[in-house]
């Protein structure tokens, strides 16, 4: 090939790479949610598990402790942090023990009558309503007025307060200066992030926000903020893995380049042999951006490792070429072997696609496209660019000498025996159990950090939630009965468990659209409406108030009118 044509080919290839690079930079959206590496849930149990693992309250909870200053200052920092974070959209809840009615999830308000036990035993009849309204009148003239005023129009029987009392844990951390404290003088906070627990990117964003807010508080320099929880772990694991991968990657890159330079002693060959692999990577990512809306970070990291196989193709071409042989001819001779290697690797990676796991599917698309591009560019583009002449390294004096030295090294027959004995010895005297059954041992989280979290969690609850009963989509009519019977059964079960000092189970009803007019304590809507208007009037509640309260009642209870 003429030098001019070679230069044109090289420029065109580089331009194509630049174009691909531009497309990738425009379209690539990297996600970090680890759930895309888990199989898609198929049964209700699996769906529940996946929901809880990713978006469940447990996985989105960050435990914070502030220590290292006098209690009063820590309490101030705790309050300051709550104030700074509570209107941040990254966090759904920020709690430090300072009770506030606003801390109750407002999405529960519409379901207060379904959740609270009041109507299990009490009919919402005239006598009850009158008594309740009279009590609210008394409340309004008492010091508690300011506390309840906001809640009254929507919740005249104060069900939200009953729910708050019902759900308050039997044992909660000690309150000092209005905030949670441990006996070891650490102020405690709970932050629930909006981001899923196993999305390290989003969790990092949330944790940065907390740390930034904390350091912006006056007097925070003396105190120490510690974090824990699944989200924090995913960030720590991510950073640790990235650090190790970077470190290993740097060493192997330097080693690889040294090896190639040593073998071929030509920078041109080295740079040219990088072209197929660069094309493979860019084409792979471009294919991903076309096929998927988001590309997972792990797909990219792991995919590049798998794509390392493709580096072998140009190396084969360089190594198989004898001195004086034409590059194109050499590649033609090599092609059947190379094609077999490419095809077998592609078939192997195709298995990833069959797994049905989104992350692995992406991995398959990336590697297969990459391998094909690397293989075909090695066959149809690279030979035209390689230098006409190559030196055969086999004729070099020092290499022959080195070969001779290696050949003359002694080969004692007792070495395999010694190695086998050493292995048996290591198996016999290895510290720790021979067979590890503990799944938790697989976590890369440092053990000290895990211990701290367990200790931290123990300060809130004596026992972790062990049993979760879920009732899926009860029939519309049966919803009310189901809630009642499930509540009764749980109470029975709890009584039988009392000796174990477990916490009382909480009945949390799903926000199901159910018509509770049937067998419940609710009167039929028009009757309730009429009665309530009369009562409100008798108790001097302003008409605007009573009608507002009524419409919300009607709507929320599921009245048809």
């Amino acid at each position, binding site marked *: 090939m003429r030098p001019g044509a070679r230069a044109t080919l090289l420029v065109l290839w580089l331009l194509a790479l630049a174009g691909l690079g531009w497309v990738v930079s425009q379209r690539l959206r990297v996600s970090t949610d680890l759930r895309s590496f888990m199989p898609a849930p198929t049964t209700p149990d699996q769906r529940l598990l996946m929901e809880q693992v990713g978006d469940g309250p447990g996985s989105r909870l960050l435990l914070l402790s502030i220590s290292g200053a006098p209690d009063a200052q820590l309490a101030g920092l705790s309050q300051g942090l709550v104030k700074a974070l509570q209107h941040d959209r990254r966090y759904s809840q920020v709690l430090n023990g*300072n*009770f*506030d*009615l606003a801390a109750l999830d407002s999405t529960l308000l519409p379901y207060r009558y379904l959740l609270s036990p009041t109507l299990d035993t009490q009919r919402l009849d005239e006598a009850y309503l009158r008594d309740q309204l009279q*009590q609210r*009148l*008394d409340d*309004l*003239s*008492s*010091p*508690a*007025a*300011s*506390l309840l*005023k906001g809640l*009254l*129009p929507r919740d005249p029987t104060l069900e939200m307060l009953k729910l708050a009392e019902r759900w308050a844990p039997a044992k909660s951390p000690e309150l000092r200066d*209005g905030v949670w404290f441990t006996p070891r003088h650490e102020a405690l906070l709970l932050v629930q992030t909006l981001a899923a627990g196993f999305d390290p990117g989003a969790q990092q964003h949330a944790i940065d926000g907390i740390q930034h807010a904390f350091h912006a508080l006056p007097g925070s320099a003396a105190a120490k903020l510690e974090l824990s929880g699944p989200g924090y772990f995913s960030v720590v694991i991510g950073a640790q893995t990235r650090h190790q991968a970077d470190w290993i990657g740097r060493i192997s890159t330097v080693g690889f380049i040294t090896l190639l330079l040593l073998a071929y002693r030509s920078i041109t060959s080295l740079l040219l042999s990088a072209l197929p692999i660069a094309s493979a990577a860019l084409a792979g990512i471009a294919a991903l951006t076309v096929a998927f809306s988001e590309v997972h970070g792990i797909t990219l990291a792991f995919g590049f490792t798998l794509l390392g196989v493709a580096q072998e193709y140009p190396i084969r071409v360089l190594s198989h070429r004898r001195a004086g042989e034409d590059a194109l001819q050499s590649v033609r001779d090599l092609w059947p072997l190379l094609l077999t290697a490419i095809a077998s690797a592609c078939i192997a990676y195709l298995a990833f696609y069959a797994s049905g796991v989104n992350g692995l599917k992406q991995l398959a698309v990336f590697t297969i496209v990459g391998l094909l591009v690397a293989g075909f560019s090695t066959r149809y583009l690279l030979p035209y660019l390689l230098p006409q002449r190559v030196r055969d390294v086999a004729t070099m004096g020092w290499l022959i000498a080195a070969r001779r030295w290696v050949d003359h090294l002694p080969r004692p027959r007792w070495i395999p025996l010694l190695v086998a004995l050493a292995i048996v010895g290591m198996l016999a005297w290895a510290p720790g159990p021979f067979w590890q059954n503990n799944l938790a041992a697989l976590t890369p989280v440092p053990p000290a950090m895990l211990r701290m979290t367990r200790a931290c969690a123990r300060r809130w609850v004596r026992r972790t939630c062990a049993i979760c009963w879920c009732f899926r989509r009860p029939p519309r009519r049966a919803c009310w009965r189901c809630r009642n019977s499930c509540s009764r059964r749980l109470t029975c079960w709890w009584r039988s468990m009392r000796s174990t000092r477990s916490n009382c189970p909480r009945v949390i009803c799903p926000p199901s659209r159910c018509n509770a007019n049937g067998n419940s304590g609710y009167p039929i809507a028009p009757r309730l409406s009429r009665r309530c208007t009369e009562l409100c009037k008798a108790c*001097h*509640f*302003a*008409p605007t*108030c009573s009608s507002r309260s009524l419409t919300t009642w009607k709507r929320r209870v599921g009245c048809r009118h």
Partner: protein
Amino acid sequence: MVTASASEPAVASSSAQTLLAALGQPAPAHTPFAEARFLKLLDRPLVVSGQLSWLGGDKLERRVDHPQRETATIADGEVTQQREGRHVRHFSLKRAPQLQVLLDSFVALLSGDAARLQQTFGIRQTGDARGAWTLTLVPRDPRVAKAVASIRIDGVRDQSRCMLMQEADGDLAVDLLGPLATRMPAEPTREALQTLCQGMP
């Protein structure tokens, strides 16, 4: 004792301090009260009457005799509410910023502690030659100010006659104190109480 004229408000001046010092009483101090609350929730004001007591320190007792007996005690950062025939109710003072404000202003007024009052409120005093005066307290904490816009105390010489708590949402509580407590109208209006508070005894 009141030096500033009605047209020149003084900002926490020495005259306000003199006034507050003169208002101070030794604990325990009791005063009858009648309260009318104008709430948007209700179509007519809520009227209660009873006795307010400062028991020393941060302890305040509010006993209601009419229309129904009820006692509320604020002590050690906790509010305890006792009502006839009902369960005793407790809640933390932290949950009700309005109450904290009430406690601060009351205790400071009754003990004559001008420094404490100044810590929590911006104070403005006006008065006239006949000895009638008005103290307007505006909470310094913006979080509290979101609930309580201002407190106005009207008095003559060394006696407080009225306390008006203007809440930020437009609701108003008017407390007639001392001898004025007996003069609560059967159907009070904001205007009538206003005249009553600012009139001379």
